[in-house]
């Protein structure tokens, strides 16, 4: 029964995430447009874009190698696996025992690696520039992510996301300063990973400062659809991850029935909508920073994560 429930929630979770991803991107775009006083495209627009792009044949440069062909699939599959591991409306999914936070970081790194390779493959200036920036940002973002995860694992005694979320939901830990600091560090990493505004501007591909879009300039048709879908999945996964770790309320516990799932689903939709609104407000209120300031921004995130871990060492008496 437990296995059957796990299988069912896993399948439902995947379907939910696959459907939610374009909706999240479209919703954030729509909210931003409304806040800037424009009417904005319908939140369903990304679905239409994807349908159109999927029907088109990719046009590859003459000197494109097999990397250009394979990279989109590697990126999407790595992100999909990561998405399958992050709980949305229920705990105890079939793959939950595999849902290790360090594994998630590695899967994201794999997707990023594929994207950077695809950007450099044809040898255009913008592709290489975008890839170089993406990788240098990652060099700062990943240590911050891992140190933030360290404080999670000190508190929960494990790096398994399901177990961490369950520990936080029980509320025995209370409100912790170190968790707040680690949370801010994670938010900064999430903004960087998803190429959102203080780091990169998702609304443009006509700027010398672009990072994510610069790597996609050469992809078209099906490949472009895959990359865009990958970006949407990644954004949804990060929001779901933040919701799972910091707002673990209302999630159906392992082995519960359909009614609890429904409640969990409602809670999840509310949380995601809240995150989307927060993201839109944040992006409308803040300007993109210069590329050379991003390492400072991420360095600050890393230092906050370090601080969180240091405070934890103090309070747990390890130091």
């Amino acid at each position, binding site marked *: 029964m437990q296995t059957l429930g796990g299988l069912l929630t896993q399948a439902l979770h995947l379907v939910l995430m696959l459907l939610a991803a374009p909706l999240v991107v479209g919703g954030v775009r729509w909210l931003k447009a409304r806040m800037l006083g424009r009417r904005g495209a319908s939140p369903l627009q990304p679905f239409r874009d994807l349908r159109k792009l999927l029907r088109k044949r990719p046009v590859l440069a003459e000197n494109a190698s097999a990397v250009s062909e394979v990279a989109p699939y590697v990126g999407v599959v790595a992100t999909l696996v990561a998405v399958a591991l992050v709980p949305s409306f229920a705990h105890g999914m079939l793959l939950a025992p595999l849902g290790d936070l360090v594994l998630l970081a590695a899967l994201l790194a794999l997707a990023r690696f594929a994207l950077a390779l695809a950007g450099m493959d044809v040898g255009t200036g913008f592709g290489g520039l975008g890839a170089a920036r993406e990788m240098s940002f990652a060099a700062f973002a990943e240590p911050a992510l891992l140190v933030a995860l360290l404080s999670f694992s000190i508190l929960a005694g494990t790096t398994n996301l399901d177990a961490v979320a369950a520990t936080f939901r029980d509320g025995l830990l209370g409100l912790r300063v170190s968790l707040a*600091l680690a949370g801010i560090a994670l938010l900064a990493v999430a903004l960087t990973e998803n190429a959102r505004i203080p780091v990169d501007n998702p609304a443009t591909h006509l700027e010398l400062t672009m990072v994510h879009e610069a790597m996609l300039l050469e992809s078209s048709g099906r490949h472009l659809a895959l990359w865009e879908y990958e970006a949407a999945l990644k954004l949804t996964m990060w929001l779901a991850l933040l919701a799972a770790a910091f707002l673990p309320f209302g999630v159906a516990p392992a082995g519960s029935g359909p009614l609890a799932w429904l409640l969990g689903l409602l809670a999840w939709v509310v949380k995601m909508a809240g995150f989307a609104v927060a993201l839109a407000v944040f992006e409308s209120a803040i300007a993109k920073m210069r590329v050379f300031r991003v390492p*400072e921004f991420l360095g600050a995130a890393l*230092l906050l994560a370090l601080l969180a871990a*240091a405070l934890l060492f103090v309070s747990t008496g390890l*130091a």
Partner: protein
Amino acid sequence: MTYGQLPYDIAHLLGGAMLLLSFVLLYQRRVQAVINAFAMQGAVLAMAAAWQGAMQSAPELYLTALVAFTAKAVLIPLALRAIVRRLNLHRAVETALGIGASMMAGVAVVALAILVALPITTGARAIAREDLALALSVVLLGMLMMITRRNAISQVVGLMSLENGLVLAAVGVAGMPLVVELSTAALVLVVFVVAGVFVFQIRERFDSVDTGAFAANHGEDAFEPEPEEASTAPPGAPPAAQRGDAG
């Protein structure tokens, strides 16, 4: 009296917010943003004091909170903003140390605060140890801000952020007499006035609030030429008038 009890958690979280705002102060480059962050830190301090007042059922702490809020979240930031407007300060803050380096120094300073706070609180509750470490960190970060900034306004803000840390430590201790806090608050106001006058004076003298302009007037440089001048000057000429012009 451990984690998981909401009153202590919230007090703790407010302390953490103050530490975070200290880092924000250290991270910001623009004078306006520094003043805003300082105002927020004052507001959080007022909240922390009020919360402690409710927890210790010590009504005088509400007064402390009120003083902190009016002085540090409203009046001083408004005055600082007026100074910025009146002096028409350029918007960029020049830091003596880069942002990255000062953030790193900040974390080192917090580590130092933890190392200092740990041995002297052995046997105390974990939460008291962490709270003391937080308050000490805010104090030291204020000092660091005074060192790393060359803009006089940011240095004033650093000084007052340091004082915020002191008050945070004071309100956390049950039975701290109000007199002490009131006098500290008054002291800060005096310090602020003095610092404001000082800023004006610097501005008048050097046409800038960049304390780097003082470098030319270090004691050694100013005094060294004097004997030479005295020996080369003709005995009949009035040296005092010349020196007055040069100064």
